[in-house]
């Protein structure tokens, strides 16, 4: 469960995160195809110190790239709980916000913030790599305390 308060998250120790935000390897569903170019060399995310890690205990940011089905939402919740504070959840695309293109599907969840607290939503289907970098910039502003995170369902 998330027990960090707003002050803890913007604590000086958290400010060191700006140098390197590590991303967890939860590359799920449609937004995956625009997250791979972000990792590759044209839109290189490693120049900002961001790498893809395999263990949730090492990660700071969780990118939820698109729709989640009823089955994968359970594992998403478990991974979210295993990530240590401070952590940020960024939801990519229109599917986590309102169901998106699969608004009448019997197997996808429509509002991601009923399952895990979300800090930031990025519109697009899928969002371009430039939009993802804009979101990373906003996350860094949240760390510095210049912007309030939109944590709902906390």
């Amino acid at each position, binding site marked *: 469960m998330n027990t960090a308060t707003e002050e803890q998250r913007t604590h000086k120790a958290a400010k060191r995160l700006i140098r390197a935000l590590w991303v967890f390897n939860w590359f799920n569903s449609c937004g995956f195809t625009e997250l791979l170019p972000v990792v590759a060399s044209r839109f290189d995310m490693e120049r900002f110190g961001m790498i893809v890690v395999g263990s949730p205990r090492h990660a700071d940011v969780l990118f939820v790239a698109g729709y989640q089905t*009823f*089955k994968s939402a359970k594992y998403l919740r478990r991974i979210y709980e295993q990530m240590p504070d401070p952590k940020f959840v960024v939801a990519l695309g229109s599917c986590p916000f*309102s*169901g998106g293109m699969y*608004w*009448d*599907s*019997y*197997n996808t*969840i*429509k*509002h991601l913030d009923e399952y895990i607290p979300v800090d930031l939503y990025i519109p697009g289907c899928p969002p371009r790599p430039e939009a993802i970098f804009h979101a990373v910039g906003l996350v860094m502003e949240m760390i510095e305390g210049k912007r309030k995170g939109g944590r709902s369902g906390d």
Partner: protein
Amino acid sequence: MVTEISKLLEPFAPREEGNAVWVREPLEEAPRIWQELRELGYDYLAAISGVDWPNRGVIELVYHLWSLQEKSFVHLKVEVPRDQPRLPSACHIWGGSAAVNEREVHEMFGVEFQDNPDLSPLFLEDWEGPPPFRKDFDWRAYVREKYYCEDREEDRGYYKG
């Protein structure tokens, strides 16, 4: 159409279209025809599709068979009654590809294949409703009840129609 296949399928009034043959056969004849078609070279089962016809009271299964030598299709249709959907499995003829297709049709339509060793759920976990691809499953009401909430302002539109 090659002569052996036309002799085999002639009693069932097949329809030819380009390099494909569409034919409907009765349920009792199905295993025999499958075996003979396999011996005539139709050894690649591309897919098994299910179609639900509630007005006729049947679930229709279409077996799409491709022959690598003849380079042509035979689409075989078998009908099973909706209230008792049961028919023999084709696993001993076409192997793994038949087994996994039958598992999917079982999950989505509720059709039972006798002698298929493994009919456990494939895609859906903890599914409580009826088989989802049947026409009497009111999926819009199901989605509305399960995933949308009338108190949320952005969901109001979904409740209108």
